[in-house]
């Protein structure tokens, strides 16, 4: 699993979000290609859900 970062805070209601998924994505730009995790073969995009309002956010894992 990707290295943990701080909890995301829901931009809509301020509640702490739940990190429930990591998706392996393949780089589509040269910029992204520089950050590829060679072991996993791509980049990890984290998905977070807000238990309060259902909002969804994502961010690139470190």
């Amino acid at each position, binding site marked *: *699993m990707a290295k943990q970062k701080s909890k995301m805070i829901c931009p809509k209601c301020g509640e702490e979000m*739940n990190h429930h*998924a*990591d998706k392996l994505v393949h780089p*589509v730009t040269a910029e992204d290609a520089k950050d590829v995790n060679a072991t996993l073969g791509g980049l990890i995009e984290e*998905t977070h859900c*807000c238990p309060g309002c*259902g909002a*969804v*956010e994502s961010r690139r894992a470190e």
Partner: protein
Amino acid sequence: MNDRPLNIPVILGTTRKGRMSAHAARFMAAQIARREGIVSELIDIGDIPMPIDDAGEGIKDPAFSEKMIRADALVIITPEYNHSFPGLLKHILDSCLKEYIHKAAGIVGVSAGPFGGVRAIQDFLPVIRELGLVNIFWDVNFGNVSKVFDESGKLLDEAFVSRADKFLNELVWMAKTLRYGRDNIALDS
């Protein structure tokens, strides 16, 4: 568990003129509307701005994205065109990603011939999986669709009420379960 009503939109996945899939979409939306605790709306992909000079998240429509964020499950109505699902349906679905992850999907196939879109559905499943959606194991297959609905959209075969009911039972269960997981179960727990 939070008490937000489940949100299950129906996506009409074709823009073709004279599409019989519109009858199937309205029928499925009506079946959802009979259930308490669920909000729904019919999303016609023909109403979504659809640039063709870019693809993927580059053509994301904010209104469609917001609807997908609110959704707990999707009912996707797909006709079968040349043994597969419509390219424009994929063009629209590809415009989002985080919005779908760990949400339920159920596919409704429509065809003029007897097979009810089964080949389109089989083609569709790997796409659904890659989008992060979780497909249920019930489908609804409207084969020979011109005999299932009349020209006004009136249902002519009541068996589809029971079939839609079983499909929705499974979809609602999956939607509730996945929402609980999204809200409460961390990836590393």
